[in-house]
């Protein structure tokens, strides 16, 4: 095939490695933001504390955003119930704790249960409506939202509960900055989960099958991939990541209540949208950005109290979707009329 080294091939190769100016801008902006944060941290202990808190919360938002992206990439569905599902699994962990399991035993069991619930939901409720209109699927996930909310209220009631703190209440001191063990723990757990899921996709046959099923279901079926099963597993993994998000978000909520994931879902939407809904890396980075931005704003701009966080993020979502709907990391989509 030596004679296939035609100029057209060389041209294609060049195109494949051409540098995308949009991506460069994004990387530069992120770099700028990182430098800004670094300088701020060095100059002010408050700033540093806000930043670390923001990163910790942001990792949770990123984890839920990752779940949303996973589901969207696999099935082109936005799961409006992702947050409530995460909340539900957190309550399950709470319940397991009441039955004597240690925090981490409950954690592991909850992740497994979340996976199973996720796959079951895809098979029973999503699969039948997947091929119908967007509206139908939206309504089904909205129905799930309400159903799960109702079930949690039924089983555990709406009053505040408390869970054992997974990382205790201690903190480090580095250069005058107090860093809660909790924040470090949150970031570490989210990072570990994300890395494991990434490794699954990148290195295993199952992961390859899942990627193929998400990219081109028809072609994937031809090589023997059971596409439907891959989609179900995708939902299972998303539920698992959501469970991680819920469990890691809970300690900073002080109390466990059925509505605690609702604002976080909005933040996760924003993060996912920042990443263009299809980019996992974008969703994670987006989550961190949102987390840090929110804590800094609430900390430094007194007019924007804690109450305005959700409306603020709503504004962010609107802005992104109007200005750059493919997000920071997304690819250009065919524009509809």
């Amino acid at each position: 095939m030596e004679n296939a080294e035609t100029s057209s091939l060389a041209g294609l190769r060049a195109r494949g490695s051409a540098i995308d100016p949009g991506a460069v801008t994004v990387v530069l902006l992120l770099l700028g933001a990182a430098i800004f944060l670094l300088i701020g941290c060095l100059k002010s202990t408050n700033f540093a504390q806000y930043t670390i808190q923001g990163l910790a919360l942001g990792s949770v938002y990123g984890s839920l955003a990752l779940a949303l992206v996973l589901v969207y990439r696999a099935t082109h569905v936005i799961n409006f119930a992702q947050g409530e599902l995460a909340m539900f699994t957190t309550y399950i962990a709470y319940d397991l704790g009441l039955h004597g399991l240690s925090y981490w035993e409950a954690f592991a069991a909850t992740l497994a249960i979340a996976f199973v619930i996720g796959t079951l939901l895809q098979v029973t409720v999503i699969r039948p409506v997947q091929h119908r209109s967007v509206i139908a699927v939206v309504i089904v996930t909205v129905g799930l939202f309400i159903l799960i909310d109702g079930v949690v209220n039924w089983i555990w009631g709406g009053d505040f509960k408390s869970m054992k703190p997974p990382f205790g209440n201690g903190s480090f001191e580095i250069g005058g900055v107090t860093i809660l063990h909790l924040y470090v723990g949150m970031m570490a757990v989210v990072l570990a989960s994300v890395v494991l899921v990434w490794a699954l996709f990148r290195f295993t046959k199952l992961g390859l099958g899942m990627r193929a099923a998400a990219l081109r279901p028809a072609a994937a079926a031809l090589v023997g991939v059971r596409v439907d099963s891959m989609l179900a597993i995708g939902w299972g993994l998303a539920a698992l990541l959501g469970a991680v998000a819920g469990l890691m978000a809970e300690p900073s909520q002080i109390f466990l209540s059925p509505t605690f994931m609702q604002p976080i879902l909005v933040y996760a939407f924003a993060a996912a949208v920042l990443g263009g809904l299809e980019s996992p890396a974008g969703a994670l980075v987006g989550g961190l950005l949102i987390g840090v931005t929110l804590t800094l704003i609430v900390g430094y701009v007194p007019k924007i109290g804690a109450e305005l966080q959700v409306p603020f993020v709503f504004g962010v979502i609107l802005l992104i979707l109007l200005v750059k709907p493919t997000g920071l990391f997304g690819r250009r989509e065919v524009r509809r009329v």
Partner: protein
Amino acid sequence: MTRQIPALASLLAVAAALSVLPFILSDYNIYLAAQVGIFFIAVLGLNILTGYTGQISIGHGAFMAIGGYTTAVLSRDHGTNLIVTMLIAFAICFVVGLLVGLPALRLSGVYLALVTFALAVSVPYLPLQYSTFLGGSVGVSVQPSQVPSNLWVYTAAWACSAILFVLAWVILRGRVGRAFRAVRDSEIAAVASGVELPVYKTLAFGISAAYAGVAGSLLVLANGSAQGSEFDILLSLQILIGAAVAGLGSLWGILVGAAFVGLLPHISASVPVIGKIANRHIDVVFGAAVILIMLLLPEGFAGLLTRIRRLAARA
């Protein structure tokens, strides 16, 4: 609504029933019947938007909030005539709807759902932030001298329902309605045939929001005050569920949908089977119901009626 022009008989039957009901129902039940009327208006509005132009909104509770707070604040601060506050709410929400409809033009399907969802979750936080004007968690009360009786709310709700229903029928019958349906069925085809998409899509949003605004006003009047927690995401979802149950294009469908979301949360625990669950765990019933409807009867009650009519025609 134009494919099945409501038989005059249907309309008269409903009107007759509505006029008789206040005489036979207890005051509490009149309150409930008013709730159905309120949801009738909101569901009708959403039907126009989603059913006819295909734009998904999970945020109509926000418009209800705007309408409701408008009425409450005007009453509290100026003692304005209640009907006038409703008209103002209608106008304000129409404008806000147009304003929301503009950026909505650039958002398709799922993205619009996402944005309206975020909007709906945001709204209850605003009264908490601006607590002097919007009453914080306590809310804004209607002036005590103006608080209407349940009968008043019932009459107002159903009178508005009738007016707005006829208004919708007139709109959807004519050029505007045809344009709406063209947009829903195929945006590309609509543009190709000369329909100015932006105008009609935005207009639909405005109208739909205005309807929700009136519903919100009535809700506040029924409760005597506007409270942020009343207008949470679950309210928006309730309206969506009502529209899903209703299906498209049927008066009876909207009545059934409105009754479903308006009555069920208040159902007495003594009603067999459904009663105990619905009374305490209404969300489980709503969630399960809407999922089942999407799986089994995706066209809602209107679809059921169509199927029955077809079966009857064959027999």
